[in-house]
């Protein structure tokens, strides 16, 4: 008797949880990328190893709408995920053989260095300090930092010069935090970009700052409450992180990116994900440093 009661209660809770869970209508990525089944690679190369193993581990974000967001079926979706899937397909690895691992700012470089992930595609800004310990293929996209404000911009924020006494929210330890602190001291920081929305709603902050594409994803998720300024004050080239010194693999990924930019796969990946909210940009030229 008691057991059935508990079961009924648990079922009710689960139902409630399922009903309140955020519904995403994004399709799991990469299902339509043709897998290079007859791909041949140089003996001993990383490409051959991955192809032989028929498995690749990719680090990405799990909390970034449009780029890498954990979906209801336990698979991340977004532009980064599509790019990762493209690379895997060129290696002859189907999408269902990719192991997605969540990477955050404190573990990206260590995960690459000690081989816990093969590549990282995680809105990962290319910079010189990181290049000391890992290598970057790409960039495959160039974002710029902007501001998300309440609809109608009641605080009247136009650019970094007009911040005044407004409090700006961003993610602890992000590149965005470093950039905004060069312009104002009134910064609060949280764990995830979406955690900045509540402070804006309650007036504890007047704006959220990070890369414009991430902001667009948040606006998309929250209907008509917020807007993104049509303005950027930085350039953030997103690259694919891989083990330092693996030049063959880097060249291979760069070739893959260039090819996908030519044959329309890049464009399709964009339009299936971020392109639902943002205009399709010109893909950037890869940097074969």
């Amino acid at each position, binding site marked *: 008797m008691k057991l059935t009661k508990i079961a009924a209660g648990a079922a009710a809770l689960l139902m409630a949880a399922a009903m309140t869970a955020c519904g995403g209508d994004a399709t799991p990525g990469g299902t339509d990328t043709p897998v290079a089944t007859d791909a041949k690679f140089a003996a001993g190369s990383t490409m051959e190893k991955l192809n032989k193993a028929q498995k690749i581990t990719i680090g990405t974000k799990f909390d970034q709408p449009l780029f890498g967001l954990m979906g209801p079926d336990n698979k991340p979706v977004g532009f980064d995920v599509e790019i990762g899937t493209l690379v895997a397909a060129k290696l002859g690895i189907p999408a269902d053989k990719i192991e997605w691992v969540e990477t*955050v*700012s*404190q*573990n*990206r*470089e*260590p995960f690459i260095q000690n081989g816990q992930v093969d590549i990282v595609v995680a809105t990962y800004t290319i*910079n010189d*300090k*990181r290049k*000391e*310990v*890992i290598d970057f293929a790409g960039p495959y996209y160039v974002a710029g930092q902007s501001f998300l404000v309440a609809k109608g911009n009641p605080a009247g924020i136009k650019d970094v010069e007009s911040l005044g006494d407004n409090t700006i*929210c961003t993610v*602890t*330890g*992000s*590149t965005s*935090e*470093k950039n905004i602190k060069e312009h104002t001291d009134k910064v*609060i*920081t*949280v*764990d995830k970009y979406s*955690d900045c929305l*509540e*402070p804006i*709603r*309650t*007036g*504890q902050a007047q704006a959220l700052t990070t890369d414009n594409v991430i902001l667009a994803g948040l606006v998309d998720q929250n209907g008509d409450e917020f807007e993104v300024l049509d303005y950027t004050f930085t350039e953030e080239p997103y690259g694919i992180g891989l083990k330092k010194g693996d030049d063959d693999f880097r060249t291979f990924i760069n070739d893959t990116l260039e090819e996908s930019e030519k044959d329309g796969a890049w464009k399709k990946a964009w339009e299936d994900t971020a392109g639902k909210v943002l205009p399709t940009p010109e893909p950037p030229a890869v940097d074969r440093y």
Partner: protein
Amino acid sequence: MEAVLSNLDQYWLGFKVTLELLVVGGIGALLLGIVIALLRISPIASLRAVATGYTELLRNTPLTLVFFFMLIVLPSLDIKFPNPKIGAFIALALYTSAFVAEAIRSGINGVPVGQAEAARSVGLTFGQTVRLIIMPQAIRMVIPPLINVFIALTKNTSVAAGFTIVELVAISKSLANANGNAVVPILLGIAVCYLIITIPLGQLAGWMERKAMVQR
């Protein structure tokens, strides 16, 4: 190592805030915890019930949820703190007070009940019994577990990083992001900062235990 040394000012910023959370949250928890412990041993049944309910509720709620309530739920009900730090102090004090109360209660329960009965039989009031007979004996048994509670509190302050408070863990994220070439040393440096607080506390607990061994 170079990355750690060149960012000592950042470490200090985070260390100060962690220490602040520990001290303010700890004092709050101690005061609240003493009151709750006294309620739990009081002769009045309804007070005992209130204290038991409070302890069980807070002890069995994840700290993250307590923080969430203080810093997300309350502001959305228009109850705002002038500074989120105040909310963090309250969250830590409330949560830890339940553990403090339990530590004190177990110390009090360690005093043989005959002591209290004897005190009452010579005509001391409840207040006098607690103040003059039970507490002086209980305090020796309370201090080591209490210090363990504060060591746990030191580590629990890190939850505040997720709620706009820039303490050691928050600093570790910004430093790791800014120094992709030295993530591991940066994080080790943060761990050392915590050890600077917790190891002396542990030593203190050991020393006090030896000092105040209950002589029976």
